């Protein structure tokens, strides 16, 4: 499958930044393409695939068992350089795990787009088919939730 050869590693790198697990990232992307192959899915542009990987990663992290397993074994180096932060906090898999159940589907996706994929609000709006205003509102709410968690060093 051409899209797999063309975009597979870009998607593995993306999944690694989210999950911080190289084996889970690779397995997730491989599983995505196996499913696409079976469904005869032809929309295989990178932006579409990016969203599909985001959603699969989030589904994995919302599962308690997988979340615990990934948190226990995650590789800090797999996060890659963090060029955006939320209230000066890097959104890594630890923080993401705390946020997944506090945000709705749209907010979760925007969280990943903004603070892990480092997209601008315009890029997010285009990718997700939302208005820039909506993206801004969702980001405000995400920032509120992150702020409500307290600082990284604060006792929980």
């Amino acid at each position, binding site marked *: 499958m051409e899209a797999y050869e063309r975009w597979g590693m870009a998607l593995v790198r993306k999944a690694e930044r989210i999950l911080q697990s190289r*084996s889970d990232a690779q397995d997730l992307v491989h599983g995505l393409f196996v499913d696409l192959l079976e469904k005869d899915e032809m929309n295989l542009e*990178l932006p579409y695939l990016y969203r599909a990987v985001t959603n699969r990663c989030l589904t994995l992290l919302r599962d308690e068992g997988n979340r*615990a397993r990934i948190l226990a074994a995650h590789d800090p180096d797999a996060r890659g350089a963090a060029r955006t932060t939320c209230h000066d906090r890097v959104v890594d898999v630890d923080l993401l795990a705390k946020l997944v159940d506090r945000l709705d589907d749209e907010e979760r996706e925007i969280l990943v787009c903004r603070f892990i994929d480092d997209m601008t609000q315009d890029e997010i709006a285009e990718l997700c088919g939302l208005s820039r205003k909506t993206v801004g509102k969702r980001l405000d709410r995400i920032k509120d939730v992150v702020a409500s968690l307290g600082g990284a060093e604060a006792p929980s």
Partner: protein
Amino acid sequence: MSARCTGEPLSWLALERYHAGDAPAELRARVEAHVGECEACAASLRSIVADQRQLPALPASRRSKVRRLRRALGGGVGALALAAGVALFVARQPAPTEPDRVKGGDVAFVLVGDDATQIAEAGGAFAEGRRYKVLVTCPPSMHASWDVAVYEGARPSPVFPLEPTRDLTCGNGVALDGAFRVHGRDALRVCVVWREGELVDRAALAPDGARSVCKTLVPADD
């Protein structure tokens, strides 16, 4: 710590598209202008360029073949046959390969065929009719019961080709009891499942549930 971006960072999506030659002229110009003066984004782009890893192969089968095989595999436990005996081919087991070694509390596994070939990566190819043993890498401090479950596509119920291993002395590449043979020609999802301080309950396993590590494997080309 790495350098800070001098402005609004270039998204990873933009950098990946640029790297793949998929960026329109406007984006290409923007990427080039930005990385020329931003060390943080230039380093991110370099990390993409430097990544020389290869992906495992997708199933060679096309859709119709996948479906046909799925039907063929659909009836009960037909895809996998239990292989009798434990020490069938222990003599030729090589050590697990480096890429599958894990850090921290992680658990990993490789399959070793009776011809001493290894399947260490997700997407690895299995040979029809070959017998495989499961070698687990787990922290020495870990005490758990172990099981192997195999899922065929969307089928909800796993096949258990091996007897559970009650107590394993964890380490690098430790063999679970028994071996199994693969007869199917469709992609398989092989999961090693463990429970610490209790026995694995086969009736209570969810696909991709907690305390498991899985690989999707594809049939080797003939």
